[in-house]
């Protein structure tokens, strides 16, 4: 047996789960376990109590209301990959899921787990950054809604308090016909990316960009929105030059250097991948660039 001993709890109700988290000392939430269990097997993490959310029905489901797509935190990445609702309403998320791990890990890994783990090179936090998602947190004190910008607070750090869990994620739905693009570079399929870019473009009459979003991942301590790129795009006609100019704004990021890649190389990737993601987004919105 690899992990240190712990007690296991499998609540069926959200309220019961919240009470366990509020009262048990040194407790951790088990979602899909695809990041937590490896860390437990290495004994990087030793807990006294594990609260498995796998049987809490209230944390599942996909629903569309008031122009927003609401995803239960315990929906697996595979559930989302197969959802026609997500493919239609939030195609950027569907595109990104193809890059997440492997089928065996997507079958178990959840969207809530991915956001709570907050790996800076992970795909799903980057998608949430691009969409300006809202993360709904539950505890014995009730629910609170946190904009994604405020949810990630640093390297693998979030606004979650120890007694809170992610209940749901809300993504604002962009106008039908909007464009999206997602590109990452990883050494092997399924690895965390050295760098990646997620783009959304809403293009109106005359090819004028009505709204844009560009998020980068793998280049900072958390996913970044490139506000400068969005500012150069919005309100102007999209073309090859506009995309190159916007992608150049990615040059401003100051990525980390580690054994996998140097900061300069990551910055280069961020720029190239931003250009490709924006070009895909423009094409999918019906504009050849």
């Amino acid at each position, binding site marked *: *047996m690899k992990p240190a001993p712990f007690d*296991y709890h499998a609540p069926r109700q959200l309220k019961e789960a919240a009470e366990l988290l509020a009262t048990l000392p040194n407790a951790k939430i088990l979602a899909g376990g*695809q990041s937590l*269990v490896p860390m437990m097997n290495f004994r990087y993490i030793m807990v006294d109590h594990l609260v*498995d959310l*796998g049987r809490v029905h209230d944390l599942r489901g996909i629903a569309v209301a008031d122009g927003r797509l609401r995803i239960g935190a315990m929906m697996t990445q595979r559930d989302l990959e197969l959802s026609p609702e997500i493919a239609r309403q939030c195609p950027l998320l569907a595109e990104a899921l193809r890059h997440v791990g492997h089928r065996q890990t997507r079958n*178990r890994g959840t969207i809530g787990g991915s956001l709570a783990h907050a790996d800076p090179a992970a795909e799903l936090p980057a998608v949430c950054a691009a969409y300006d998602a809202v993360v709904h947190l539950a505890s014995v004190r009730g629910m609170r809604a946190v904009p994604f910008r405020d949810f990630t607070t640093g390297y693998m750090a979030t606004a979650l308090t120890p007694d809170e869990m992610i209940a749901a994620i809300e993504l604002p739905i962009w106008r039908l016909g909007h464009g999206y693009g997602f590109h990452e570079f990883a050494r092997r*399929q*399924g690895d965390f990316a050295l760098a990646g870019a997620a783009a959304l473009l809403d293009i109106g009459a005359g090819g004028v960009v009505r709204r844009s979003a560009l998020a980068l991942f793998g280049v900072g301590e958390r996913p970044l929105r490139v506000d400068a790129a969005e500012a150069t795009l919005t309100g102007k006609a999209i073309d090859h030059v506009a995309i190159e100019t916007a992608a150049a704004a990615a040059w401003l990021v100051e990525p980390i250097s580690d054994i996998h890649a140097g900061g300069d190389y990551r910055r280069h990737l961020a720029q190239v991948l931003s250009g490709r993601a924006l070009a895909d987004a423009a094409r999918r919105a019906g504009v050849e660039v």
Partner: protein
Amino acid sequence: MAKQATRVTVNGKSHARLVEARLTLADFLRHELGLTGTHLGCEHGVCGACTVLVDGRSARSCLMFAVQANGCDVTTVEGLTPDGGLSLLQQAFMDHHGLQCGFCTPGMLVTLTELLRDNPDPSEQEVRQALTGNLCRCTGYAGIVAAALDTARRLSNGSGA
């Protein structure tokens, strides 16, 4: 840490045990049930040797606890093998030299069984994509991919499953 009850159906047979919560599903299968067909390579979710089907979906059994599988239906490599013979996929692995040392083979077979169930006519690219989560350190991927594609061909020719 009191032991906890878990009841798991494995290859069609129900097993109830009292286990430590930290017992992984992989160790449960191997040590409690004696089903040593499931192999453990890295024990941290990278190599894919321990892949089993949980409620019909592939999963790394080193990243699940036996207590999490309470009430689940698990299929291991032993469960893929029909009585008195090999499955079409297993036979194809033999025919195409799809196994050398054999350590990764159980995970490969389970992963490809899921793929061929959901996509009976995959392209080579789709087969390779499906296998990204399974490492073969003999690097015998060519034979494994050939075995999967040959199985797909035989399935589409209607020569039985």
